[in-house]
């Protein structure tokens, strides 16, 4: 499996983000307090925000290299993104949401073949009963699955999830977390999950990067963090479990 | 010659007759009927005998704006502390306002017909002609060299006139009709073919010729004002022209009858007439001493 590696530095508003991350062979959880710059970091990886210097690669594919004056546009980075409120298109059905992702590749397929593929993706996530619904008719967990299906339909080279359980009520959170943890384990592309919750941080990823005030305070496995917490925040994080 | 204007006017008179506004009649006010111009010419405005009247509201045709402004300055000289308020508008508009009971003291009209209608509806006292105006042909700078007379009007590519519903439009039609009798029967048709717009007031006609958008138009001489140099002015031969008579009357139930009377006297006085003449009005109604 490829890994997503990034070194980015740049000022967004009052926050100066200067971070180096590496998903390694699996899922990286970026954890940190509110306002640490977690979402900003994701947006920099996606290309929505522009760091003033940096380098982003997924395996052999270079997405950004400011030293070489290389910058791949958002549309061509092939990074799957699931925002905190899932960002489902409200005027489209579940099926159409997924079809939209298939429309955007340049293979110019027929509508019918897109539909068959979209249905296959939804079936894979057990969403076939929901195809005709609009996002207003879905539960939080269902929305999250649809957003995941849509992101994967575009065949991304990495997956970025922002607070995937943040919009869910407490009752739903447990089930969705278990589903997501299992799903990310099976996934054959690197993933980044952003969260502020220690429980999610421990269960969703293989490795963690703790972001504090725009900088990576510590990176490693949960066990490594427990053994030698580098900062007070990390200490509190692991002890809250 | 079919004149659609007449039918529209007839209709309007009937319709408007039905639609009376609230009439406020102040029985305590005894309003002196205006004396004739001859009697008035030598009478000076009296000093204000009733100090309770410190305001005067004059409704006047828009073409009187400049002249009446100067008349007000003159009036204030002999009536210190008196506030003169004007409402300048199209004569038709003022007529509607008066019919709806607008509180005015004096009405100066640019059209005898509207004054007559108000008299018939007992909205105003009897009226006197206090000034005359004449339509002139205005030509844009671009066409000034090719149009020197009314007869050359068809040389214009774009002519603007007043809509027949407003006095200047009505007079324009009458002038064209008269001119056709001696300039050839097709004169009116040739002019009509070049008309690109029938404007709702004289200022619109003048603006379009001033800006060069239209080649020629017909407006009152008094409307030229500051634009006199921006257009070329062609006098319409008297045998074709319509002399417009301006009547003035005191409104029935005027809140300030004494000042109203004095205002009318000023307008008809020698000084008042001079001011009107300076603004381009002709001040000699038939039978009165002309200048």
């Amino acid at each position, binding site marked *: 499996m490829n890994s997503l590696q990034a070194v980015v530095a740049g000022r967004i508003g009052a926050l100066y983000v200067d971070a180096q991350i590496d998903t390694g062979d699996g899922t990286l959880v970026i954890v940190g307090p509110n306002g640490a710059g977690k979402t900003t970091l994701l947006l920099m990886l996606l290309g929505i925000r522009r760091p003033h210097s940096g380098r982003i690669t997924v395996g052999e594919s270079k997405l950004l290299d400011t030293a070489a004056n290389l910058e791949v546009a958002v549309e061509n980075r092939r990074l799957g993104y699931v925002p905190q409120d899932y960002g489902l*298109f409200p005027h489209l059905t579940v099926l159409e949401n997924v079809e939209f992702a298939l429309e955007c590749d340049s293979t110019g397929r027929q509508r019918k073949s897109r539909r068959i593929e979209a249905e296959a993706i939804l079936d894979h996530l057990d969403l076939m009963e929901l195809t005709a619904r609009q996002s207003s*008719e879905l539960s939080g967990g269902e929305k999250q699955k649809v957003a995941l299906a849509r992101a994967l339909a575009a065949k991304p080279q990495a997956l970025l999830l922002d607070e995937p359980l943040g919009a869910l009520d407490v009752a739903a959170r447990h089930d969705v977390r278990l589903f997501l943890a299992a799903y990310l384990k099976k996934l054959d592309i690197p993933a980044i999950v952003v969260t502020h919750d220690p429980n999610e941080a421990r269960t969703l990823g293989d490795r963690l990067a703790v972001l504090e005030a725009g900088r990576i305070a510590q990176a490693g496995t949960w066990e490594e963090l427990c053994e030698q917490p580098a900062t007070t925040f990390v200490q509190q994080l692991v002890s809250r479990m | 010659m079919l004149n659609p204007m007449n039918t529209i006017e007839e209709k309007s008179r009937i319709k408007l007759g039905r639609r009376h506004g609230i009439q406020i009649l102040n029985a305590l006010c005894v309003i002196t009927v205006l004396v004739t111009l001859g009697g008035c010419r030598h009478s000076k405005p009296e000093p204000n005998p009733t100090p309770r009247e410190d305001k005067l509201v004059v409704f006047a045709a828009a073409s009187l704006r400049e002249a009446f402004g100067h008349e007000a300055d003159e009036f204030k000289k002999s009536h210190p502390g008196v506030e003169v308020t004007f409402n300048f508008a199209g004569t038709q508009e003022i007529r509607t306002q008066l019919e709806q009971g607008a509180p005015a003291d004096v009405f100066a009209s640019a059209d005898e017909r509207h004054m007559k209608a108000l008299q018939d509806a007992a909205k105003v006292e009897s009226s006197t002609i206090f000034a005359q105006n004449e339509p002139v042909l205005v030509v844009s700078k671009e066409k000034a060299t090719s149009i020197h007379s009314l007869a050359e009007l068809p040389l214009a590519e774009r002519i603007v006139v007043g*809509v027949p519903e407003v006095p200047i439009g009505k007079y324009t039609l009458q002038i064209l009709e008269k001119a056709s009798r001696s300039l050839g029967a097709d004169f009116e048709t040739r002019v009509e073919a070049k008309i*690109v717009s029938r404007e709702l007031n004289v200022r619109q006609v003048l603006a379009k010729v001033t*800006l060069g958008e239209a080649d020629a138009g017909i407006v009152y001489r008094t409307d030229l004002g500051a634009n006199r140099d921006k257009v070329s002015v062609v006098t319409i031969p008297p045998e074709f022209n319509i002399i417009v008579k301006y009547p003035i009357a005191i409104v029935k139930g005027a809140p300030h009858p004494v000042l109203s009377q004095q205002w009318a006297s000023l307008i008809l006085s020698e000084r008042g007439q001079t001011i009107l003449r300076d603004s381009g009005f002709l001040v000699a109604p038939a039978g009165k001493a002309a200048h």
Partner: protein
Amino acid sequence: MAGQSLLSAMGGVLVVFLIAPLLGLVTATSFGDFVAGLRHPLVWPALRLSLITTSASLLFVVVFGTPLSWTLARANGRFIRAVEVLTNLPAVIPPAVAGIALLLAFGRRGLLAGWLYPRGWSVAFTTLAVIMAEIFISAPFFVQAATSAFRRLDGNCLVVARTLGASPLRIFFRIGLPMATPSLLAGAAMSWARALGEFGATLMFAGNFTGKTQTLPLAIYTALESNLCAAQALSLLLVVVAFAVLLFVRVVLARTTADEMREY
């Protein structure tokens, strides 16, 4: 409860104020007068011209105003803000002044005259001039509504669409436009209503000629000079036409917003 009654009562004051003149118009015009007014020779050419020109101006405003609003809503920077303010300006200029401004730009002696009319013609006094005046006066209403509608869109949806590889045109047509449709319709309706009532700029720039440049408001003003009754009947017709169209848009909107409400 008492607080809500107070608020409703205050709102009621404005409603009464807005409706009273319309009611005056209705009560002052008997059915006979209305029918007679509709037979006035100016009515049908003016109504026809008004519907044609406002449709044309609305089409132009929507076709060019929607991309403009999208651009204004998506872009940042001082230049863009300045452009936004400039496009709002025609809404505050008195219409008659707007008419003069149009003449000074597109008239025979206007800024663009040498380039537009090498042979001395000009657009003034034509039906096209009516449409131009209506566009000038009514476009700001649509652009303002559309820009704020596009700004209110869920930014996450647009970001996701980009990460899925959608081109700017695809995002505009498949995501931005359909998501903002109810607000765009409302803006278009307001803009159309403003164009329908346009008077001052049309009179100055296009003149007043039956069947060619005399729209319904100009016909009303013309009729007012001779026949108050016909003017009232025409005004009533204008109000009825506008009411029907605006009501239709509201009903369509109510339906689509009801759909949207279910999401939240």
